[in-house]
């Protein structure tokens, strides 16, 4: 059942209609086979991203002056949710892509915005966000990838990047890599942000990780072997990297919260449909209150997940602080997705445990949402720091 939405504008509703049409015609018919194939052969749905890009769905939230469509997060996130209800990996990709442009739209100089954004937001390109390292996941202040300044005295003219990033979505398929690297030894205050083109010499990729799910989100290590990066591609000041990374993650978390909500909605729809058809003891299993209440709890979880991300989105759209609310939304929506998808498998019984139905895939896909863009323990850290200051 399509979610009930109250869109703030008519164009917002038109966007949802367009998204639903593309989901029905392009995404839903492909997702099962593509996810299965990617688990075997690491294929990547480039064509699907092209279709979304052509329709304008890869650059909705960025300002129009930069080539985006200036949509409020309240609208953009509901589009992400709709996409996730059809194909989780693709929705995560859309969210990650937005994340990669965030440093430039928010912290870039007007010259950098003019030079970089038209291509990044053209719909033809896909970005990667390179923050995590093998030894620096939750604790990004401990990262060791270095950017060594070049140039004689004064402002550096270029940098050389050396190090290794881990679990990078879109690695090997992206057109640019928004990369965080250390420019000084001052832990969290020693990080800087760079936009590295995919064809920069010295950048290489590991073999794709074998994952539990979300197979069409290709994830690999990215290796930097003295990769030259012009100083004009450093976003923000030296040492501002941590602040830039965290600001982008606040926004990115909302994308993950929205995607998790869409995933949970699909699991609920599947379970509700099955429960009304499957007969046991001479009646539909849904006629048992014990099962009907499980479905009710799933609906309550999905609806409240949606409410938390929309609340944070409206704060963000109004220019208010929303960091705590974004963490609450990410925590609530991804925990809801985990529970709802697990319960969907339960409702489908043995059928739910087989690959004949997507319930087991939903459950595997839900798990990662509790881990990336800040584990849910880290979300609690953020929330408690806001509450207990």
């Amino acid at each position: 059942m399509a979610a009930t939405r109250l869109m703030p504008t008519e164009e917002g509703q038109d966007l949802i209609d367009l998204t639903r049409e593309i989901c029905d015609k392009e995404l839903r018919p492909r997702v099962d086979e593509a996810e299965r194939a990617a688990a075997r052969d690491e294929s990547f749905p480039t064509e699907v991203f092209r279709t979304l890009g052509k329709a304008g769905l890869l650059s909705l939230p960025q300002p129009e002056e930069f080539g985006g469509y200036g949509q409020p997060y309240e609208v953009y996130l509901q589009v992400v949710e709709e996409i996730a209800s059809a194909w989780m990996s693709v929705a995560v990709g859309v969210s990650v892509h937005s994340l990669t442009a965030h440093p430039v739209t928010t912290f870039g100089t007007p010259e950098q915005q003019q030079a970089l954004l038209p291509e990044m937001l053209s719909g033809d390109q896909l970005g990667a966000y390179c923050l995590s390292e093998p030894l620096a996941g939750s604790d990004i202040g401990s990262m060791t990838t270095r950017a060594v300044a070049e140039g004689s005295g004064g402002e550096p003219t270029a940098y050389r990047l050396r190090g290794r990033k881990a679990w990078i979505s879109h690695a090997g398929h992206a057109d640019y890599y928004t990369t965080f690297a250390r420019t000084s030894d001052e832990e969290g205050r020693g990080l800087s942000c760079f936009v590295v083109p995919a064809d920069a010499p010295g950048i290489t990729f590991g073999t794709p990780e074998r994952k539990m799910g979300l197979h069409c989100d290709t994830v690999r290590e990215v290796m930097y072997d003295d990769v030259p990066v012009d100083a004009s591609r450093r976003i923000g000041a030296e040492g501002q990297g941590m602040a830039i990374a965290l600001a982008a993650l606040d926004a990115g978390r909302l994308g993950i919260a929205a995607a998790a909500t869409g995933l949970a909605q699909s699991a609920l729809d599947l379970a509700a449909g099955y429960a009304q058809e499957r007969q046991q003891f001479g009646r539909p299993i849904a006629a048992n209150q014990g099962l009907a209440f499980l479905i009710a709890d799933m609906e309550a979880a999905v609806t409240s997940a949606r409410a938390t991300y929309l609340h944070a989105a409206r704060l963000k759209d109004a220019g208010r602080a929303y960091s705590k609310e974004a963490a609450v939304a990410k925590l609530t929506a991804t925990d809801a997705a985990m529970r709802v998808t697990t319960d969907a498998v339960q409702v489908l019984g043995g059928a739910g445990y087989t690959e004949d139905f997507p319930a087991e895939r939903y459950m595997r896909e839900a798990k990662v949402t509790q881990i990336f863009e800040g584990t849910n323990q880290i979300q609690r850290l953020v929330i408690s720091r806001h509450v207990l200051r």
Partner: protein
Amino acid sequence: MNIVVCVKYVPDAQSDRSFRDSDRTVDRDGVDGLLSELDEYAVEEALKIVEAAGEGEVTVLTVGPEAAANAIKKALQMGADRGVHVEDEAIHGSDAAATSLVLAEAVRKATGGTPELVMTGMSSTDGVMGVVPAMLAERLGLPQVTYASELTVGEGTVTIRRDGDTASETIEASLPALVSVTDQINEPRYPSFKGIMAAKKKPVEQWGLADLGIDTSQVGLDAAWTSVVSVTKRPPRAQGQIVADEGDGGSRLAEFLAGQKFI
């Protein structure tokens, strides 16, 4: 080249469709509608022709109730330049002949009497009569080139390929002409968000029968040459016949198929 594309707003085939008890016409209330998918091919082809020529306009024309404006909106979002919506209480229940009359007058009015190219889908996805294109061509006095799976516009001519069961025909007609297209001719584009925004500013004309000089007695249920006498819902699919295999399964299967004249 200026092209008029006739499109229809139809009930979504995904949802339950029913007929009204009172006059046995399709019940459009409470059913989601959309631009007939078969008409999307005509819109796409018209857009391609105009884009390739670098000049000209695509006008989408629909005859239908208020909600039919959504069919025009979709075509404008895809890239058509302007819309014409003919809406009149009296049109309700019109048959194909009356519909083609209204369309013909609207095409004349929209083009100042001289259409260059009129395009349609090969049939609607709800009525599936497929006769309106031919009737419309006749009323406009245009050559009718139907079921095009490929279309080329030349100097004063239009050439199409029509694929039949046993042969493909290449047919040429002089312009102006009417062409109906099949679902093989192209891959209709999705609107883009840019298109959605642009569509809001595009002009849509609203005409009634009086604007077209058509008398209400010529259209509607009462003027229809045929009438629906009764409507029966298709019975739910019955359970198939189950044959328990008691060693003779093969022959009983063959008996069944022979009984149904399959073998």
